[in-house]
């Protein structure tokens, strides 16, 4: 493969270039067809939103074929010979079926999105140094806030499942690849059009409805809203297919001996999140579609005389379970990292799994807690209060497992472990403050204030993103074959942990003192606290410069890590770093529990057969 390693930049980007070209051709074709249709029916051919929508659908298909779905999938349907995956670095820029390549594609893409959206957050915090706003006028603020919100939501949905789920799950369960490798590639290549749409929307005025897109506003605002809806439908499709793929993979491709109770907790968490993604994302896509049709075709599902509140029921029916799609994989990482670095078996492992599954079961029954101020109907308010607070019980089991694991352990405080312990603390604050929003009386005052902003940043950044950082440091040697710089890692942790808590803790106070969310200006009396919040946010932001520097430098020049620098027992650490394309020379056989550190007489978790060993025997 030495020759293909040396392809030039232009040649290496062949598939992406072709995808863009075919996408443009498809877009032109679709727009043209829509225009012709309009002319044929005697209308103005440039009915922009309609033309654009049809153009987008054709363009999306052109893009997918162009990036390589054509050679590696569609040709087969036509009875033509398909072509194998490209090699070398070029495979990262093409429709490739290797789950490890797809994992890295997801991870790098969403980290880039995360940093861009983080930059927008820094701009917003700069804006808030003055109560009248320093940087944006009202419209631009709404636009920037909305973009930050949806980009971060997309990161939260996909970065762990798409990145680490893809890279690790087949390795952890001893599989050769995902159950549907081509479907897997499709889920990734649906993402760039989503990003393109969301950024392109800014050119036509963006949209000003946050990430929640409530009608009637979302049916009558600028065209950017339509871009948003199309993007979210596409993104939803990607999540649904991904969820299906993980469920099938974890259910059917486990290596011999990998019983359910030997499954690493991270794989369990991905399974739980996949169930949610498969079931609930459809409601999300449906709400976006109905809203788009209200806009394009004059239906009135939600726009008067339809029911605007109906939208919220459908939307939150997905979007509450979605927060568990974010956080359960985060829990999985926290527990995984904590057990390896406590050098002790995972405490109450089956209870933690039961906790995940109970959260999955309950999460579909709590959506209307986002709607406590839409009505005074006690039957609705009371029942959703009860179901929502009930979720704290299975969530508590995750805390039990974490605390029981560190108790009497030998905590090895590496960077990933620091992030994991920090994540447990942060999520505790997020969880406790969630009770205030589940309790109807207090939510009446606190809904749509900075209390909510603080709460969900505590759960998403504090829980999930801290878990993500733990995962990045923990598996960095596996992904790259090299070690990161531990000192810079710890510096990043402290900047982020302190910056985060100093920035977001005072926001609870701001909410209690009457600062509502999604506002471009605020009461002058709150300026002092807001300046403090901004300063702390900049501190946190600076942590990411350290992170980025450390990652880039270590990827190129870090010291070689070897297969198992942490001396961890799970399967992914028993293969070379980075793992070979075929994962295992022969199917591994699982013979013991994954976390039996310090257990007298415990055998290994897995026996790896040498290449060809099984065929001979």
């Amino acid at each position, binding site marked *: 493969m030495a020759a293909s390693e040396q392809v030039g930049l232009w040649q290496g980007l062949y598939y992406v270039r072709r995808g863009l070209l075919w996408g443009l051709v498809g877009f032109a074709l679709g727009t043209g067809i829509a225009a012709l249709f309009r002319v044929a029916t005697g209308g103005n051919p440039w009915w922009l939103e309609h033309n654009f929508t049809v153009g987008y659908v054709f363009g999306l298909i052109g893009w997918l074929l162009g990036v390589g779905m054509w050679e590696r999938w569609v040709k087969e349907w036509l009875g033509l010979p398909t072509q194998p995956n490209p090699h070398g670095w070029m495979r990262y820029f093409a429709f490739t079926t290797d789950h490890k390549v797809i994992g890295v594609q997801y991870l790098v893409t969403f980290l880039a999105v995360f940093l861009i959206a983080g930059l927008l957050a820094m701009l917003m915090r700069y804006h808030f140094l003055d109560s009248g706003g320093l940087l944006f006028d009202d419209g631009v603020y709404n636009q920037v806030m909305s973009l930050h919100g949806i980009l971060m939501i997309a990161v939260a949905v996909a970065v762990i499942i798409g990145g680490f789920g893809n890279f690790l799950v087949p390795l952890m369960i001893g599989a050769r690849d995902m159950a549907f490798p081509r479907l897997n590639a499709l889920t990734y290549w649906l993402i760039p059009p989503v990003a393109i749409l969301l950024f392109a929307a800014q050119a036509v005025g963006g949209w000003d409805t946050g990430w929640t897109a409530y009608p009637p506003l979302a049916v009558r605002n600028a065209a950017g809203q339509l871009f948003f809806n199309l993007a979210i439908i596409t993104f939803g499709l990607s999540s649904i297919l991904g969820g299906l793929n993980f469920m099938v993979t974890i259910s059917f491709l486990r290596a011999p001996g990998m019983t359910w109770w030997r499954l690493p907790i991270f794989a369990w968490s991905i399974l739980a999140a996949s169930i949610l993604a498969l079931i609930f994302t459809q409601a999300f896509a449906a709400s976006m579609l109905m809203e788009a049709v209200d806009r394009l075709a004059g239906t009135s599902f939600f726009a008067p005389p339809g029911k605007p509140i109906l939208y919220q029921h459908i939307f939150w029916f997905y979007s509450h379970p979605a927060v568990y799609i974010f956080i359960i994989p985060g829990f999985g990482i926290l527990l995984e990292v904590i057990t390896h670095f406590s050098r002790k078996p995972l405490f109450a492992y089956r209870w933690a799994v039961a906790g995940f599954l109970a959260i999955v079961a309950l999460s579909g029954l709590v959506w209307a807690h986002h709607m406590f101020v839409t009505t005074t109907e006690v039957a609705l308010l009371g029942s959703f*209060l009860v179901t929502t607070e009930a979720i704290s019980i299975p969530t508590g089991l995750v805390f039990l497992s974490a605390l029981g694991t560190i108790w009497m352990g030998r*905590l090895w*405080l590496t960077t990933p472990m620091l992030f994991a312990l920090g994540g447990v603390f942060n999520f505790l604050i997020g969880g406790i403050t969630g009770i205030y929003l589940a309790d109807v009386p207090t939510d009446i005052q606190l809904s749509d204030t900075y209390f909510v902003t603080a709460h969900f940043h505590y759960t998403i950044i504090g829980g999930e993103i801290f878990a993500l950082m733990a995962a990045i440091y923990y598996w960095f040697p596996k992904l790259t074959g090299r070690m990161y710089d531990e000192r810079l890692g710890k510096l990043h942790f402290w900047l982020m942990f302190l910056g985060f808590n100093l920035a977001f803790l005072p926001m609870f106070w701001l909410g209690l003192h009457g600062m509502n969310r999604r506002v471009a200006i605020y009461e002058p009396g709150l300026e002092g606290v807001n300046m403090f919040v901004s300063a702390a946010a900049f501190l946190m932001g600076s942590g990411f410069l350290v992170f980025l520097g450390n990652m880039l430098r270590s990827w190129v020049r870090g010291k070689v890590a070897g297969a198992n620098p942490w001396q961890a027992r799970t399967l992914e650490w028993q293969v070379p770093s980075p793992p070979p394309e075929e994962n295992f020379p022969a199917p591994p056989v699982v013979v013991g529990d994954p976390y039996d*550190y310090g257990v007298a007489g415990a055998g290994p978790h897995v026996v790896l057969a040498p290449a060809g060993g099984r065929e001979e025997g």
Partner: protein
Amino acid sequence: MRRDLALAALLWAVLTGVGEALLVAFDFQPSALSDKGERIKDAVSILAYFAMPVLALVLAGLVYSVVRFRGRGPEEEGTPIRAGIVPWIWLGATSALAFTIMLYPGLWGTVEVAKGSSSQSLTVQVEGLQWTWLVHYPGQGLKNQRELVLPVGQEVTIEVTSRDVLHSFWVPALMMKIDAIPGTVNRITFTPQEADSYANNPLLRLQCAELCGLSHARMVIPVRLVEKQEFLNWVEQQKR
């Protein structure tokens, strides 16, 4: 192990004690100027009292373990412990706590706060539109006011609706919020408690709390709580 448990429990008790003491000593909320607002404010405090031992427990567990159970590398291994009945106890305790707060302040408070109007209620209609509020007093024959004036000690029922997109009626000082939905009238009832005004208290403002487009942040009108007689005078004045 015994000793560790005892010390961690002590740490938990101390943290809980200090936390609860701080909650009692400092009022971290602004004052509530309506009867139901006072209920809500109490609920915030009660939940904080309940939360403190939970916060302290996890904090104590984390801090104690990080300080006491350090290792320097993968060679040092922890002492495996059997879960035994601990998860059952944990499940029982967390369930008991969850069910308690569901009942009180949860359901109890929900019923209190959602209580409807009596026959003595003063009806005020509030209409949201991009990007301001219009206040009507049907019983007094007043329309299209740009200020919400309410008599102290008088039960009022606000009928909230919208002309265009979603908005939300919110007066932070009253701690009352309800969405303004086109095609629907939402009602909330409460009794203002103390005379005060926006000029003096920035929380006495009728602020839109649902993102409604361009000038959402500026969708604010002043609120004034006045004695009953003053209210009547104000009505007369506006009529002229």
